[in-house]
């Protein structure tokens, strides 16, 4: 039944009209290789369009932040990058999303999601032990090696190992909110994704835990490309290399983070980051 729906969706996809970029991301140096390239992306919930002709480049091993007021389509956009929106009925994608030059809409969705991990707004550990949570992705992907080594490695990468190493068999619900969120990051990292999508990962966390997660993101850059949606402009300024500002489903401005926050080109960007709306 699900595959039938997917089939319908595939036929509904139209050849993309590649639009000229309003912000052509020329500041991204030639030497930087791209992980994601999004060309003329439209997204529809039923007949309601949520994303309009979006062009964006996401360079490798960098953090790209997406900012904008609530409902501007940044979460929707993020969720098209691993095709999570397909789980919502009556949605439609037009345009191209290239992951390492390959159109993700043509890819096998399971393979895509293995390469593009996701961390959600609220920590969503499974009702299993800490160990089983991290091992989940490995198990469903039929990992044959030694699980416990990879579980430890992933928990270390998520800076959680020292706090939980003696309680691996305890329920994940016994952890605090911040620990749960890092557990979710460890769970996503376990399958060694090339990209990590973070959908407001700190909005339910206190400042200290938020700082921990930002530090974690900094260290993860060596091995991972990240795209983070955030409502917290300080967080975007602190933790990202590039920032994209979205408004009403359109990309308004995309630049290196320091430049976007100090010398925004578009008056709407300036109004938003100085707190005049949003």
């Amino acid at each position, binding site marked *: 039944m699900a595959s039938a729906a997917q089939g319908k969706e595939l036929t509904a996809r139209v050849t993309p009209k590649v639009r000229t970029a309003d912000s052509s991301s020329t500041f991204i140096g030639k030497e930087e290789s791209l992980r994601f390239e999004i060309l003329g992306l439209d997204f529809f919930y039923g007949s309601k369009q949520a994303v309009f002709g979006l062009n964006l480049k996401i360079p490798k091993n960098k953090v790209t932040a997406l900012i904008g007021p609530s409902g501007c389509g940044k979460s929707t956009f993020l969720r098209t990058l*691993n095709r999570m929106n397909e789980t919502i009925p009556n949605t439609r994608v037009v345009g191209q999303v290239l992951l390492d030059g390959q159109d993700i809409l043509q890819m096998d969705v399971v393979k895509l999601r293995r390469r593009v991990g996701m961390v959600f707004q609220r920590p969503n550990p499974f009702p*299993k032990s800490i160990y089983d949570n991290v091992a989940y992705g490995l198990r469903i992907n039929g990992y044959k090696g030694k699980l416990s080594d990879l579980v430890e490695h992933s928990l270390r990468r998520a800076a959680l190992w020292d706090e939980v190493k003696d309680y691996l068999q305890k329920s994940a619900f016994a952890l605090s909110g911040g620990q749960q969120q890092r557990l979710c990051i460890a769970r996503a990292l376990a399958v060694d994704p090339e990209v990590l999508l973070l959908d407001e990962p700190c909005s339910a966390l206190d400042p200290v835990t938020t700082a921990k997660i930002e530090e974690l993101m900094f260290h993860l850059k060596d091995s991972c490309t990240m795209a983070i949606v955030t409502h917290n402009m300080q967080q975007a300024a602190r933790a990202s290399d590039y920032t994209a500002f979205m408004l009403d489903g359109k990309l308004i401005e995309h630049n290196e983070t320091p430049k976007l926050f100090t010398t925004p080109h578009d008056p709407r960007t300036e109004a938003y980051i100085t707190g005049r709306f949003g």
Partner: protein
Amino acid sequence: MSDVRLMWRKFLNVVMLTLTGVAALAVVSVLFMILGYLIWNGGKSLNWDFFTKLPKPVGEDGGGMANAIVGSLKLLLLAAVMGLPVGLMAGVYLAEFSGKTFAFVIRYTTDLLNGVPSIVIGIFAYSLIVLPVKHFSALAGGVALAVMVIPITVRATEEFLRAVPVSLREGAMALGASKWRTIATVILPAASAGVITGMLLALARVAGETAPLLFTAFSNRYWSPGWQQPIASLPVMIYTYAIAPYDDWHRQAWAAGLVLLGLVLVANLGCRLVLNRRGTYRSV
């Protein structure tokens, strides 16, 4: 506001509070009256023989209902084996896979099936199984009870699966799990406490059913080996014994009622204990 008006409002408040309170008390006291009466009358007639002996012929005092206790358990086992898997899987389909229109049809049909009088379900099993083979059997009784178990299980499963937060589904899908994998490894375990409780309630409900057994399992004053013969059950024994003109039989009917209630209660408590031991898994 005038004083009279204020007085009236206060008065009305007290009256309504009292009325609702009395109604609530009535509900509770009815249950306790039944329980008390059952324990009082049943307890007096309950003895070791009741659990170990077969019924005595009319006119002889004593004897027990060992065959009916085992018979009820066998019928419930049949109902569970046939009804629970079907109910569970249909519930999963309803909650996870079906489109809007089809889901509406299934849900509506399930509710109708749930509302079908149990005697009608008895007739259905009678014409389906008893008539072709020309004799009553435990199997026919089990089928009748299974038909009653299914709709309750379907709705309980559906409800508890729907209560599992979307975030858990998305978490599993984002790791590359297929839909079925997500259901089997994340959603069902998260909902298991509720689903199992629902199944148990379904079994408890049919454990006390008499009508569907009257002309399917019928009854039997002796042991009933296998599944092909008429079999005694506690509810049918209660019915037969309660309308008989013998005082001793009335006492035994009370005892059977108490045992039936005890069985359901013990099963419920046991299940709850097992689920509680799994602790935090339920807190989703």
